[in-house]
Each structure stands twice: as C-alpha cells, then as structure tokens.
C-alpha cells in the first residue's frame, strides 16, 4: 500500500513539473517578432521611479537623452564647428565687441507640436526656465554667467542677453545643455508641446518611454518611426537583453562587458571619440598635509602607470590623460609634455618632501565605469613608491551624496562629463589659475584668451592637485542592423537607421 502512495506522489510531482514547464515555455521571447520594422529599442540604465520628463530636474543620462529627442536644442557644443557650437532653433549667436552682450537669432519656421511658431519669447523662457523651475545645478550655467533678469526679446526673432561680466565663450555657456521649451511651460507631461524630432506617446518612469516621429520637426527628418527607450538598471541585464535580441541598442556598457560582447556575432561595440570622454580625476586636498606640498602631488602623479590603467581597466577603450581637463577640446594645451610613469623620481620627490612612507586613504565609488578599478591600480602604484596607501570603496550613489564631507576628504575620486575647461572651471584652489581662466574667458583677442588658457593648464599640469590618468568614453553596443548613433556627451539616437 505504501508503494501506491509513493507512486501517486511521484505522479503528482511529475505533473507539477510538467505544468510548470508548459506554463513557462508557451510564449515566444518578447519583442523578437512584435517590434515594428522602424522601431529602435534602446536600453539605458535609467533611474527607477525618479525618472522624469522634466530635463531640468532629471538627474539621469536617460532623462537627458529622452528630453533631447523631444525638445530641440537651442544649439549644441560642437568643437569642430567654427563657432565651437552647431546651431539648432537658434540659428546664430553674436557677441558684442565689448563681450558684454550676446544676441541670439531665432530660426524662422520652427513650430511646436501644438502648431504655434517658436519665437524669441520661447527661447528667452527656455534660458530662464532653470531658475524659474528650480533646475538642477548643471542647468544653472547660464544664470551664473548671464544677467537673466535683464535679458530681453526686442522682436519675435531676437533675444538679447547681457553678461554678468565680459565673456568670450558665451556661446558654449548657452549651448552646453539648453533645450527649447514653449513659453510659460511649467510642467512636463506627455502632452507638453515640443519642437524636437520625436514626440512622446507613453512614458512610465523606470520602465519605458515610447517616442513617435514628429513630422512637423524643422530639421532633418528622422528615418525611424518610433523609438522605445527602456530602463534596465543592471549592466549584465542590459547585455543579456541585447544578446537575446530584446533590444537593439544598449548604453553604458562596462569595459569588461564590452570585451566579451566584441566577440559576439551580430553585435558591434562602439565608444565615443574625443572630446566626448569624461575627465576621471583623483583629487588631492591641498589645504592639509601631505598634499600642501607640491612635491608630494607631483610624486603621486609620477607614480601612476597610466598605460596600465588603459589596458587593464578599460581594455584599451580609454584615452591617456595628462592631469589637465578637456582633452580633445580646441583650447586643450597640446604643448604640455605627457606625464611619464617615473616611480624613481617619485620616490626621490617624496624623500625630499619628508613624506616617504606617509599614510593616505583614497576614497572612490562606482560612479563611472572603472573608477574603483583605476583607484585600485593607483593605490598599488602608490604602494610601489613606498606610500602606505589604502582604498576606501563606497557603495554606488554614496560618493557625492554628502558633498561637504566629499570636499573635506584628503584624497578622493571624481569625474566631470566632457565639457570645455574654462566655463566649467571651479575657482578657489589656485588663485593664479583662477585669474588666468578669467582672462581666458574675457580677454579682447582670441590669441590672448588662448594664451591665458594654455598658461592656466600649464600651471595645473605643474602644481595642480588632480591626478587625471585617463579620459573615459561612453561605450555602447548595438545589433549590427543599427547605424547612425552619434556618440556625443550622451548617445544621440535621432539619426539612427535600422537595416532589416
């Protein structure tokens, strides 16, 4: 009798397992056959429920990528263009001779999706919006440089911006992040009128955004009909989704994942080119020992083997840095000698400074691919010159969370997205550098400005407090059907073409 019981149980188990198996394998992998032909499915890291359509307050790369597809930029940074910027709904920007006033000319024939023409009032509002709508600090660059209270729109196609002090690089300031929004926009929904190449069909924070081509877009019409932006926070999950064909494009691929994806059939891996690479820096606090001594700072910079970081951390997908920012931008000082890896000289400098065998702790967190791994190699290099170096690794999201604490740490990792050196320079560390940057931004002739900028960079190279071993590009991977992704500061998908 007991044996029948056992048999019944075995049958029940088998039935259960079968049920589970059939229940699970009934459907095809999602997305493979259902996607429309001209729909690009692109996955980004996203930011959970904190994603927003308001680009002024959206902290993630996806928020900005999405916003830029929906709202046309006034203009964009373009180091190769004659003005340093390429124009959008603003078709020209001229500076007065005294560099105190900037005049923006609004392009004719640009329409919002509600049919209204885009005028100077909209452009002026777009420039003021960061202040009015409490934008994040990265959007505040304009109000730091221009007197927005005194800005005017004298006619429908002209905006006049007075500067707070004379600046020659006002174009870069205006074009770094500003997108065109309609006058008096206070909230951003799927129905907010926009002027970009796509409009929003649906938006679910932390999950997906469906974008549809805007046929009234003034610029080059996108070939794609739709773009589906997906949020996949985990890097490995993004790679899995691409491998299985659930998405066509993934952004923010780690260097190690890129290496494994390179060998996959039907997938190509690309990274952004200079100047679009983040400035990865390890900052030494000069307000306290041992870093108040320039010899210690130089020793630390000489100790680092940059080539090893490029090879071992980034598998070749990074650019060797020379301890000054903005590599690849026109004003970058290329006359400076590349800092060599010279542990012997470093040891000597430390001994001279009486700092042989000092103890330091380097704080880093996974805020940029390879930031922690690079820090690990730097700590090794420092140990090799006799420094008792240790790494303090913070969990994701912690590094900048307590900013006053971050500032007070003696030795810490950080990064700056690709951007011009002068307008993003934070004063307060070296007064002579600050003065030179001011000249570089405001001198009357271009030669004077460039000379000052180069001199400022030279000083930073000589006595600066940052080790910048590498510039880190963003790595993307895509199915080989995808072409035309522009790898700018963030990937631009507006000109993507999809082959069948």
């Amino acid at each position, binding site marked *: *009798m*007991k044996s029948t*019981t*056992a048999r*019944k*149980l075995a049958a*029940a*188990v088998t039935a*259960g397992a079968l049920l589970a198996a059939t*229940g*699970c*394998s*009934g*459907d095809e*992998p*999602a*997305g493979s056959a259902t996607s429309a032909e001209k729909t690009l499915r692109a996955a980004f890291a996203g930011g*959970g*429920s*904190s*994603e927003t359509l308001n680009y002024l307050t959206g*902290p993630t790369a996806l928020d900005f990528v999405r916003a830029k597809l929906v709202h046309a930029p006034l203009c964009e940074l373009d180091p190769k263009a004659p003005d340093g910027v390429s124009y959008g709904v603003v078709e020209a920007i001229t500076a007065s001779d005294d560099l105190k006033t900037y005049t923006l000319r609004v392009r004719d024939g640009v329409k919002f999706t509600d049919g209204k023409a885009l005028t100077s009032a909209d452009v002026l509002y777009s420039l003021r919006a960061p202040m009015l709508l*409490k934008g*994040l*600090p*990265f959007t*505040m660059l304009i109000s*730091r440089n221009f007197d927005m209270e005194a800005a005017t729109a004298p006619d429908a196609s002209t905006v006049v911006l007075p500067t707070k002090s004379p600046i020659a690089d006002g174009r870069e300031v205006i074009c770094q992040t500003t997108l065109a929004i309609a006058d008096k926009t206070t909230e951003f929904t799927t129905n907010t009128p926009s002027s970009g190449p796509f409009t929003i*069909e*649906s938006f*679910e*924070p*932390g*999950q*997906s*955004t469906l974008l549809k081509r805007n046929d009234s877009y003034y610029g080059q019409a996108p070939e794609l009909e739709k773009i*589906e932006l*997906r*949020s*996949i*926070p*985990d890097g*490995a*999950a993004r790679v*899995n*989704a691409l*491998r*299985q064909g*659930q998405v066509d494009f993934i952004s923010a691929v780690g260097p190690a994942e890129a290496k494994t994806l390179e060998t996959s059939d039907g997938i190509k891996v690309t990274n952004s080119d200079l100047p679009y690479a983040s400035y990865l820096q390890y900052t030494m606090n000069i307000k306290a020992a041992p870093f108040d001594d320039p010899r210690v700072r130089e020793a630390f910079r000489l100790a680092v083997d940059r080539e090893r970081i490029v090879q071992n951390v980034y598998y070749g997908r990074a650019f060797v840095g020379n301890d000054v920012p903005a590599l690849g931008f026109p004003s970058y000082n290329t006359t400076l000698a590349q800092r060599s890896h010279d542990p012997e000289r470093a040891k000597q400098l430390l001994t001279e400074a009486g700092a042989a065998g000092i103890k330091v702790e380097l704080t880093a967190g996974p805020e940029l691919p390879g930031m922690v791994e690079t820090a690990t190699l730097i700590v090794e290099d420092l140990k090799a010159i006799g420094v008792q170096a240790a790494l303090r690794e913070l*969990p*994701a*999201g*912690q590094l*900048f*969370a*307590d*900013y006053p*604490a*971050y500032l007070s740490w003696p030795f810490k990792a950080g990064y*700056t997205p690709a951007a011009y050196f002068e307008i993003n320079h934070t004063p307060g560390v070296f007064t002579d550098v600050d003065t030179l940057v001011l000249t570089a931004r405001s001198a009357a002739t271009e030669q004077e400005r460039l000379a000052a900028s180069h001199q400022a960079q030279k000083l930073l190279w000589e006595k600066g407090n940052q080790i910048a071993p590498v510039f880190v590009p963003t790595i993307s991977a895509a199915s080989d059907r995808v072409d035309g992704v522009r790898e700018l500061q963030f990937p631009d998908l507006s000109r993507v073409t999809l082959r069948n």
Partner: protein
Amino acid sequence: MRLASWLTMRVAAAAATLIVLSAVVFWATEVLPGDAVGTSAGPDATDAERAAIRVSLGLDRPAGERYLEWIGQAVQGNLGESLLTGRKVSEVIGDRLLASVAVLLPAAVMIVVLAVVLGSAAGLRAGGRWDRALSAITLGLVGSSDFLLATGLLVVFTAWWPVLPAVALVPAGDELWQHPDLVALPAIALALGGFGAAMRLLRASVAQTTGTGFAEFARLNGVRGVRYVWMMVSNAAAPALHGLSIVLAGLLGGSIVVETLFNVPGVGFELSQAVAERDVPLVQGLSLTLGAATLAILLAGDLCAAMLGRHQASAPGGAR
C-alpha cells in the same frame, strides 16, 4: 471568541510594530551620510544652489519636526511625495508592488506545491532513497545564492535552450502580470531558492508524525492511501506553515538580486534606489508597506497554523 480577541491583540501589536519601524527607518535614513540635496545637486553645484535646494525640499527643518509631520499625514493615509520627482509615494508603491506581486504570487504557488509535495514525499519515507536524494538537492538549492540560481536559469533558458526572455521588458501600457513569459524565469528563480526551507520543515514534521503512536494507530485502523497522507500532513503542517510564511514574507522585499538581474521593476529595487538617493518619504513609504505586508503574511501564517491546530485537536490521538 477567543480567536477574535487573539486577532485583535495581534493587529494592535502589528500597528505598534509599524510605528516603531517607521521611527527606526526614519532615524536610519537620517544618520546615513548625505541627503537628497547631495544626490540631486551633482558635484558642480555652488553652495548657494545647494542651500536653495535644501530649503525647497524642506530639509532645512529639524528632523524631529519632519518626522512628526510625516507620521501625522501617514496616519491619515497620505504617504507624501517623492523628494526628487514630486510623484505621490502611494502611486509609486502601487506600481512597484503590482510588479513584485506578479512575480511573487506564481513563485509562492510553486513554493507551496514543491514544499508540500516533496516535503510529504520525503517525510513519509524518511531515510529512503527519495528522501536522501531530495535532501541533497534541497540543501544544495538552499545553499546556493539567488544570483547563482538566476544565472544558471539564464544560461539554460536563454542561451542553451532559448525559449524564455532574459529580461522582463514589459510592453508600454501593459502590466507585468499580463505577460507570463516575462514572469517565468524570475518566479522560478525565487521558487527554487525559497522552497527548500519550508520543504525541509515539513519533511521533518511529517517524519516525526509518522513515528508517533497516533500514526501507528491510524495504520492499524486501516487508514490508507490519500486519507493516510492527508492525516499525516495536516497534522504535521503547522511548523512548516510558520516556515513558509517567513519564506514568503522574506521574498517580498528581499528579492532584490532576482529583481535586478531580470529587470523586474519591483519593490526591492525601488527601495534600494530610494535609499541611494536619500528620498526619505519614498524610503519610509516603501519600508512601511513592506513591513505591513510582512506582518500580514506572518499573521495569516499563524492564523492558518492555529486553524490546523484546532483541526488537529479534534483528530484522533491529538498528538502535537
């Protein structure tokens, strides 16, 4: 009547636990270094800009005052708004809970089925070949990390035999539960990792029950087959039910690894994100919801066990 007063006591205790929990969570997010200002300002903000954000988020007010205001609102059912996006916390929780439950419910069903079937099978033949094989397998599963199980499933079902999607990408406008193929892998991963503990408890308890005089008596009285199995299992189920409810409660907020790997937009992931962003109202709302759900599941488990206990008292022998 006794049941009603017992229930009232338990619910009151649960409410008190939740209030204590909310204070502890608030305090914990408060002592973490940094706040939402730091996470939203970015590294290039000036001090004045930081101060302005702090004031606009209301973070310049004392912590005690903010907590009292929050709890006052929470009691009235208003969980407040996210510091970063201004979305209603209850709305975010609703979305995320739905996604979590879409995975947890099938996982729970699988856990119950696997635990009951395998636990009974092993327990009725304790020491047999079946029992030893199952013990080895379940100990292996219990000992494996969620990450390992999930990766193994991914290798099998998306690489070797590609029949299931690797990542849960819900089509825009749909909910996760409408797509069983997307739910399958994460649910199986949770079930494989979770059923072991409950199954082992049931096995031990069934094995013990079959060894009692009560079981002997039943067998001598000619109780056989399904009736015998039911008699043994129902008498042995109470401790396993406790185990089961603890496993299920743990899955609700503790499935972050599986949620992350399969991209399930669930409560666990949202909570870890909210903590990283120091979004205090969201952290509070999510942890309170998780706390309440956990207490409810445990209460339901105890209630079921108590009902089984009453059944047991009336069963012949009454062995406990």
